[in-house]
């Protein structure tokens, strides 16, 4: 029943998409100034159908309709309702449907929110976007149909991977998808701009909002993913340089570069071709990331049941996208005259872009290189975190210095007159760093330099903020919040990295372990039955031997029944100044439990500053509305 409705809706959606392409194409040729109401209606219908299709699938999950193979493979009657719903996008087929929804909704809102721009530019954007929608709908229908039937209808489902049974599943994928897939609209707009010769300032204004939206959601998606990894994977870190994380970071670098270059295009009407290149590469990188994750070439939590034909389809689609955009770009490319003064805001924004390009290149090489060696020489390798740390971290130092200085540089030509305040800021940053080392514990020169440059950025941005508030001028609050957030993020990650303490050891019930200032006593375990899992809860007392304060931590080992899986739940005590982090796992069903204990200073501030970066972007969205 649901299968028929779903399939009908997908086919209907494909038809509507084709009609939109056809009628927009006709409308391109007529002389009317406005876009006809018919196209608006069609686009609205397309959005409605997509949303309804998605709700049909959600219904399938809620009522546990196991005749649908997707529901059968990823759900179970005993699963709490919340995870039945969020499980809809916790699998390949459902998430692809979510992907299409984002494509369609961005297409519709771009159409209705850009009424002032040139008709042919809007129509061309719509056509190209609908080609993308068509491609993904076809992929959905033929290869990854969430409404495929399984026969005979099974009575029970296989259940959702327990590691995904977490509240974060409800928000992490949708956030990332809005970021990732949202970038499709300026991919289409960039091609349309080349085709219809709609250039410069006006083009920048028309995509500004969309770049900000996708950037904010991409940022939030990455942050939520990191938080999730922090408490779920039980390793205590939040960034692993895992290929899948890299896949979300690569489009983020380009989006960030794009957001900055757009200022130049908007204010100075130059850098047009570069902006186009960035627009095109963002979505291309997003699809590349999807290809890497879904084809099963890489493996991680994000890899669902693999099927090589999926990878092949995405690869085909990706090459089509890349070649046609390169083709259009080269055909329409006109030489621009860049004449920048070396000491101007334009140059500094270009410096930002250079840094982003460097970070992107590093992460891209690290992610793709193992795939090449595997395909070419059947050599299996992986690239460890040290590679990224060695290459990227030193560059973060000058990056933050520029990040502090650039916003106050004037357009066109800047004069050097603020030398003294800068010296004072640098000296105070160095002084603070010396204080930290003196009072706590020394760390490496590189760490010192990173701390100093992050403090430089923080202080400099704070001074900007004070200036802003005093003069009551409408300066760039969104920039201040984001840059301040980035400075704080680097600062707290540095502190967290340098002052974390951790220890792994094996304990039997009733035993104690003394470690630095802490006494960890393993008091007891108790077993509880929950709705769809059994849990072993360990009771640990952590005593701080300095001030004799006590904390109780209760890590768990969960045994899920469907599918039968063990997971371990970290126990975390978060405070403003530090997190206590404890995991336990049983070793091969013996009496020994393997314990990991960590104290991580200022963990919560890492999240807060990362959220601040996104908050700045939010402020820009609402500012650009005016």
């Amino acid at each position, binding site marked *: 029943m649901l299968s028929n409705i779903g399939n009908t809706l997908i086919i209907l959606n494909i038809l509507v998409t084709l009609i939109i392409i056809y009628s927009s194409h006709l409308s391109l040729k007529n002389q009317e100034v406005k876009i006809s109401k018919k196209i608006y209606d069609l686009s609205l219908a397309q959005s409605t159908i997509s949303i309804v299709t998605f709700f049909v699938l959600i219904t399938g999950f809620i009522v546990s309709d196991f005749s649908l193979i997707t529901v059968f493979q990823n759900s179970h009657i005993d699963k709490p309702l919340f995870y039945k719903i969020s499980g809809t996008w916790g699998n390949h087929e459902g998430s692809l449907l979510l992907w299409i929804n984002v494509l369609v909704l961005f297409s519709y809102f771009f159409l209705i929110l850009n009424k002032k721009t040139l008709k042919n530019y809007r129509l061309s954007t719509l056509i190209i976007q609908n080609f993308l929608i068509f491609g993904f709908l076809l992929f959905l229908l033929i290869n990854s149909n969430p409404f495929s039937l399984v026969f005979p209808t099974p009575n029970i489902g296989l259940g959702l*991977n*327990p*590691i995904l049974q977490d509240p974060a599943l409800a928000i992490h994928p949708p956030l990332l998808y809005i970021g990732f897939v949202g970038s499709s609209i300026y991919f289409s707009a960039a091609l349309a701009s080349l085709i219809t010769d709609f250039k410069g300032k006006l083009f920048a204004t028309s995509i500004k909002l969309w770049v900000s939206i996708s950037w904010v959601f991409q940022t939030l998606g990455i942050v939520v993913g990191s938080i999730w990894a922090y408490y779920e*994977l*039980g*390793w205590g870190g939040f960034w692993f340089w895992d290929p899948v994380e890299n896949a979300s970071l690569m489009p983020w670098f380009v989006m960030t570069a794009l957001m900055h270059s757009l200022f130049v295009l908007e204010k100075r009407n130059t850098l047009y071709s570069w902006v186009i290149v960035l627009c095109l590469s963002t979505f291309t990188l997003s699809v590349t990331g999807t290809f890497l994750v879904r084809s*099963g070439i890489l*493996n*991680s*939590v994000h890899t669902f049941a693999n099927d090589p034909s999926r990878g092949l389809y995405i690869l085909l689609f990706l090459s089509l996208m890349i070649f046609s955009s390169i083709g259009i770009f080269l055909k329409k490319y006109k030489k621009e005259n860049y004449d920048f003064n070396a000491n101007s805001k334009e140059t500094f924004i270009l410096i930002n872009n250079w840094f982003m390009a*460097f970070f992107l*290149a*590093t992460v891209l*090489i*690290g992610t793709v*290189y193992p795939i090449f060696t595997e395909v070419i020489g059947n*050599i*299996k*390798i*992986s*690239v*460890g975190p*040290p*590679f990224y740390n*060695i*290459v990227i971290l030193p560059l973060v130092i000058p990056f933050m210095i520029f990040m502090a200085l650039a916003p106050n540089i004037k357009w066109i030509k800047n004069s050097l007159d603020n030398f003294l305040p800068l010296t004072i800021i640098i000296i105070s940053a160095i002084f603070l760093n010396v204080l930290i080392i003196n009072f706590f514990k020394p760390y490496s020169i590189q760490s010192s330099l990173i701390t100093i440059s992050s403090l430089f950025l923080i202080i400099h941005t704070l001074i900007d903020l004070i200036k802003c508030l005093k003069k009551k001028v409408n300066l760039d609050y969104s920039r201040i919040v984001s840059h301040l957030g980035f400075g704080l993020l680097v600062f707290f990650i540095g502190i967290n990295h340098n002052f974390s303490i951790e220890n*792994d*050891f*094996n304990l039997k019930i009733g035993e104690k372990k003394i470690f630095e200032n802490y006494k960890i006593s393993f008091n007891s375990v108790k077993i509880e039955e929950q709705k769809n899992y059994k849990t072993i809860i360990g009771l640990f007392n952590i005593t701080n031997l300095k001030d004799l304060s006590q904390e109780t931590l209760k890590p768990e*080992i969960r045994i899920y029944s469907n*599918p*039968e*899986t*063990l*997971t*371990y739940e970290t126990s975390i005590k978060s405070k403003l100044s530090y997190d206590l982090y404890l*995991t336990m*796992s*049983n*070793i*091969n*069903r*013996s009496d*020994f439990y*393997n*314990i*990991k204990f960590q104290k991580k200073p200022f963990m919560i501030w890492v999240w807060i500053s990362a959220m601040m970066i996104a908050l700045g972007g939010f402020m820009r969205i609402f500012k650009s509305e005016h």
Partner: protein
Amino acid sequence: MLTKKVKKRIYFLTIFLSILLVAIFFILKTLNNNLLYFRSPTDITLNSNIKIDTPMRLGGMVKTGSILTKKDEINFIITDFKNEIIVSFSGSAPNLFAEEKGVIAEGKLRDKKFFIADRILAKHDENYMPPALKEVLDNNVK
């Protein structure tokens, strides 16, 4: 004669290209120093080129009855049904680490028979097997 503008451009391009080359060289060199090769016990036993003391990943099955837990470390044997290597590990073991299950250990060889691991890779569910590992085990069982 080159005009001033052209000169400036050549100047700029030279600097740009040299920075680019240095950057790429630097990236690739670091990459090369930080590669982790995936090996099976048989690779290590048969291949004499494998250097001791370089970090690598060792994959195979945990041999039945081989896990020995002490206060600060866990000892076990990784086997690919043809050859085996003793592993010593101190760190946090994932829950799915158990006898007769697939495992990937990251660390260094002390000698051809003894491996010191500093990380055991968590897998995400009971049935999941990393493709690299699956291939090795499948070949040996045949």
